[in-house]
């Protein structure tokens, strides 16, 4: 049974607005009385995904589905794709430009954090076409 279905447009190249979607999801989960640990994990994992779409893909879309057991986040972009997913998953590996680093991003921790805070994560990326990333966070997960 789905409690909430949400859809967001994440604008590209606008770091001031990144975090609006994940912030809204956090707010709505709080209102639902969701498990606070799960809320924190959803918020961080989704924010990292938003930032990735802003930095690398010129923005994208986020689809969030909430049910009592889990939150499913699907991030879809039409960016350049990830050439080497296993490298991108390594802590410290980053292709972010210098202007992004001066904002405090580009440490190569985005995807590793998303993996860390989600219970399940799949990346479907085609170079030149885009990336679809799916994360599931269980309300009662004991992962962290």
């Amino acid at each position, binding site marked *: 049974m789905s409690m909430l279905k949400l859809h967001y447009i994440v604008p590209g190249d606008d*770091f*001031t607005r*990144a*975090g609006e979607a*994940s*912030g809204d999801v*956090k707010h709505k989960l709080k209102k639902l009385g969701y498990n*606070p640990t799960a809320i*924190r994990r959803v*918020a*961080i994992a989704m*924010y*990292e995904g938003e*930032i990735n779409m802003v930095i690398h893909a010129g923005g994208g879309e986020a689809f969030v589905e909430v049910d009592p057991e889990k939150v499913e986040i699907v991030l879809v972009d039409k960016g350049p794709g990830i050439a080497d997913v296993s490298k991108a998953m390594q802590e410290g590996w980053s292709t972010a430009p210098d202007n992004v680093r001066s*904002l*405090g*991003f580009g*440490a*190569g*921790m*985005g995807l*590793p*954090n998303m993996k*860390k805070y989600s219970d399940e994560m799949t990346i479907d990326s085609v170079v030149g076409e885009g990336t679809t990333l799916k994360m599931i966070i269980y309300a009662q997960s004991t992962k962290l």
Partner: protein
Amino acid sequence: MQINALAEKLGWKLLTECDGSDRTAEGCYCGDLLSWVMGRAKADDVWLTVMGNINAIAVAALADVSAIVLVESAVLDSEALARANQQEIAVYSTDVPAYETALKVAQTLE
């Protein structure tokens, strides 16, 4: 310990409308790379940083840290101040570097 009490004890200057009196400091995390902070800081940590931009406010809100302390008098820009007020994040300032500030927090929370 309540954030506003900790701030008073350590002489931090309040920059925002929210003083953190509704939050407690359970620990402390130092760092300026935002994803590193999101990956390692714990909920209710006091976050010591020099990053006073709007993204730092987003990170503080999403990662549930109890307050931001801008060390070495690092600047909170106007956009970040507005967002912090809107999201009720307490931001303090000190001219003391991160290392000494973290030491003082640790001693006070012991």
